[in-house]
């Protein structure tokens, strides 16, 4: 159960790179950086000058500001870290092949509410667009229910 577009909403969001694609507050649209905190209804994004350089000494040096973005009514674009190109692709294929039991769930997920922009999955990084409403849950409980509860 690696971090894939399908499991993203149930997986750990802290530390991922994210861009706010859409938000009710125009000031928050376009905020990009690492997720450094999560609450039930918000994500804290360290938006700073550390766009491509990753975390490190320069992150603190450029004095990153932490923005608190409400999940509700926002759209996030997560950047999935991939460990090597080829293993990522084979993993995906293997998952799809053996996941006959969860196929229906998976299909409904991808067809229904999960608008995953899976462009360029196998070269370098993958970007996944997630409706913030799908993340509305306490951080610790997201893994249990909210990921694939159908009535929420």
């Amino acid at each position, binding site marked *: 159960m690696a971090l894939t577009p399908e499991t993203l909403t149930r997986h750990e969001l802290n530390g991922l790179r994210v861009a706010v694609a859409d938000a009710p507050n125009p000031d928050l649209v376009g905020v990009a950086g690492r997720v450094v905190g999560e609450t039930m209804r918000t994500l804290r994004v360290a938006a700073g000058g550390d766009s491509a350089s990753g975390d490190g000494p320069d992150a*603190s040096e450029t004095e990153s500001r932490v923005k608190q973005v409400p999940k509700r009514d926002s759209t996030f674009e997560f950047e999935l870290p991939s460990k090597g190109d080829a293993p990522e692709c084979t993993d995906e294929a293997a998952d799809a092949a053996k996941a006959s039991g969860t196929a229906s769930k998976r299909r409904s997920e991808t067809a229904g509410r999960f608008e995953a922009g899976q462009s360029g999955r196998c070269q370098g990084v993958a970007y996944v667009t997630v409706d913030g409403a799908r993340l509305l849950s306490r951080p610790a409980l997201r893994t249990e229910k909210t990921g694939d509860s159908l009535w929420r």
Partner: protein
Amino acid sequence: MGIPAERIDRLQDLAREATAEGDIDRAREYVRLARRIGERHRISLQRRFRRFSCDDCDAYLRPGATARVRLRSGHVAIRCLACGATARYPYEG
């Protein structure tokens, strides 16, 4: 490894990084979240995580930075430099 165990693993790395950058409170958040996930999913944290996080104040312990590690007779004493609590772990021999 399921998702909860993976989350805990990632949180441990994040807590370590945050502590290295000097943000002890952010590391605390990660440690608390990891413990909570373990609780909810009935997974015990790895021994390394258990021993290098403070039971009292949830700080992630990095020897030399936020913790002091000493060998005493019969046990290892790890003191949290953030709150001063000491944890002792016995060893054989």
